[in-house]
């Protein structure tokens, strides 16, 4: 495939891997957090960890949209579908996120709820127009990448006066999550999570630009390299971070310059700010309440806000006691450190959200990388 294969080329990968190996200093360790689930997925799927020196370690961050969705939010959606009889539309990955009472959207569907998987927000609006007798709710999740399409359908629904359509908005913001991690006790005081740099978001940065990360580089002295989701992008991003660490630098660099600019997509930013405003606080799975970290629908579009329309009230629900998704999302633990991983928690029956989407740290490690854990165990047993 033109424009894809070039970024998955094995020779190119070996070339960059050799450079990384040559340039890392043996007296240093390099701990880089990749914020996005897209990077987590690429690292696992292409076996990138195999190509890095032992002292270059990747820490999975919280940037998987379904992983950070707290149980209470999924509960709201499930109740809308089961008790209020709405047609609930959402993206595929959201369907299996575990919620209260052993339910998920897919299990609620089996109990008779009308839940539809859509590929785009506009499909949900189309369903509302095709079914004027039904209340249709779009369960909107995701970071800045999926926010503009949601803004667009809300604006379209208002323009076309589609009265039976509303949006349950759970859109969250990347920079506030990064700040939260950098401010956390583990990173700041305890130093249990050493972070020497960030592989910065790819698609999110197309929308918001590279400028919002400059603050992290300056304020927290952390290098950030905005990096594409293809495996060669990730390798190149790691090499750039290694070079910054070696030079004692902390600046924002843009590996993904073929699409990311400093200012981002201004038209999309405009549209988003027309329709949405900041929430004072939003609960993230794993991170807890994070101030100004999510969006809500502006009062001007209240008619299309499912929270107002159905008078919904958010109630926080704690995760399973042994589930380590929270610590994994903060980079404190690795998937294989969780007792539930690979035993009661698998992609078939996820207990925690990180096991749901293929961008989740646990699902990625389970599906693509878990043979490494076993190889380690076997080697030490025979030694």
């Amino acid at each position, binding site marked *: 495939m033109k424009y894809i294969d070039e970024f998955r080329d094995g020779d190119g990968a070996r070339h960059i891997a050799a450079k990384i190996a040559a340039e890392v200093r043996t007296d240093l360790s390099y701990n880089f957090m990749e914020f996005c689930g897209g990077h987590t997925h690429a690292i696992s799927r292409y*076996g*990138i960890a195999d*190509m890095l020196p032992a002292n270059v370690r990747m820490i999975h961050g919280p940037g998987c949209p379904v992983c950070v969705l707290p149980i209470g939010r999924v509960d709201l959606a499930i109740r809308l579908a089961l008790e209020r009889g709405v047609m609930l539309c959402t993206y595929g990955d959201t369907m299996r996120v575990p919620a209260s009472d052993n339910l998920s959207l897919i299990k609620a569907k089996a109990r008779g709820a009308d839940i539809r998987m859509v*590929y785009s927000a506009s499909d949900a609006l189309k369903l509302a127009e095709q079914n004027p007798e039904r209340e249709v709710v779009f369960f909107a999740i995701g970071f800045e990448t999926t926010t503009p399409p949601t803004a667009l359908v809300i604006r379209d629904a208002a323009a076309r006066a589609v009265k039976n359509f509303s949006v349950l908005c759970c859109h969250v913001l990347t920079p506030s999550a990064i700040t939260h991690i950098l401010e956390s006790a583990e990173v700041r005081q305890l130093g249990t999570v050493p972070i020497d740099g960030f592989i910065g978001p790819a698609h999110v940065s197309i929308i918001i630009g590279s400028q919002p990360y400059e603050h992290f580089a300056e304020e927290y002295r952390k290098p950030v390299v905005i990096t594409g989701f293809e495996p060669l992008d990730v390798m190149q991003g790691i090499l750039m971070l290694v070079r910054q660490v070696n030079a004692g630098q902390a600046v924002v660099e843009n590996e993904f310059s073929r699409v990311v600019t400093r200012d981002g997509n201004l038209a999309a930013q405009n549209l988003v700010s027309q329709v949405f405003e900041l929430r004072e606080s939003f609960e993230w799975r794993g991170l807890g309440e994070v101030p100004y970290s999510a969006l809500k629908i502006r009062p001007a579009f209240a008619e299309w806000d499912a929270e107002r329309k159905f008078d919904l009230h958010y109630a926080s629900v704690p995760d399973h006691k042994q589930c380590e998704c929270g610590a994994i999302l903060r980079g404190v633990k690795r998937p294989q450190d969780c007792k539930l991983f690979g035993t009661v928690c698998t*992609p*078939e029956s996820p207990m925690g959200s990180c096991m749901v989407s293929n961008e989740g740290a646990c699902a990625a490690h389970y*599906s*693509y990388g878990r043979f490494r854990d076993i190889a380690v165990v076997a080697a030490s047993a025979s030694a």
Partner: protein
Amino acid sequence: MTTKKNYLRPIDFKHGHIDMTHGAGGRAAAQLVNELFARAFDNEYLNQGHDGALLPFPTGGRLVMATDGHVISPLFFPGGDIGCLSVHGTVNDVAMSGAKPLYLAASFILEEGFALADLKRIVESMAAAARDAGVPIVTGDTKVVEKGKGDGVFISTTGVGVVPDGLCIDGRQARVGDVILVSGTMGEHGVAVMSLRESLEFETAIESDTAALHTLVQAMLQALPDPGALHVLRDPTRGGLATTLNEIATQSQVGMAIEEALIPVLPQVEAACELLGLDPLYVANEGKLIAICAPEVADTLLAAMRAHPLGQGAQRIGTVTQDAHCFVQMSTRFGGRRVVDWLSGEQLPRIC
């Protein structure tokens, strides 16, 4: 006094629809059987008109039986329809034990209101597929459910075949060191069906690979001086190549090592999967098989496959390894290694 000529108004296959009387066992049901099914499937065993078909029993060998329900949506897709699919699916299940398929039975669950024109098209496609495969549909059944309780038509087919004595091809026979072959490109069926799905429609020239594979299997067996060197045959349908390899690995208690660069996938399938967020290794096939054989016959087998029209794109993709955890591991084109796991969840519902 005049005697009226016996006259039965023919079924209107242009504008008519299935109604509840077609499943009631009365005159309307009999007429549907006579004017559609019996006429299309026409063979000496079906024409016996019994509830059950009386069939000559093959001497020697063992009987193989397989059954398969077909609920695909949409009913018509590029490269085929539920009719031919329901023949190919069951013929292939029988053939994967190395058997020669002999007879098929078919059961139809029709939904009230289903257009007779569509039913006729499906039944004729099914008849053509059975004729091409040389496997007659010898008995059948038709039921009708109320509107809203079905989805047009569901077809369940059962097949029997005979496998020669001494031949033992099954999922438990893969051995460490064996070679893994596939008969052609992966993922066309799933992508062809997906291209028509509501809200996903995209224009594509990709056609389903649906086909009966028993002649390919026979050609493969004939090419081997000792057919016992062919250990496993399986068609990677739902869950695709990845899931089927995992099934075999678990059944045989072995591991597998495959190479991504060797797995044949059409560029347009790869592109469609990229767009839809699917992995071609998990997408269904309906006209491909996986063969696992002793290493010394791999080249002979590969040549025999490539000489058959349904195996022209055959490739060697990896080997069977020793692995207590039964992992299927893949060297990526990129240069890393990863697990190729079972399909989890539902990637493409109602694909066959």
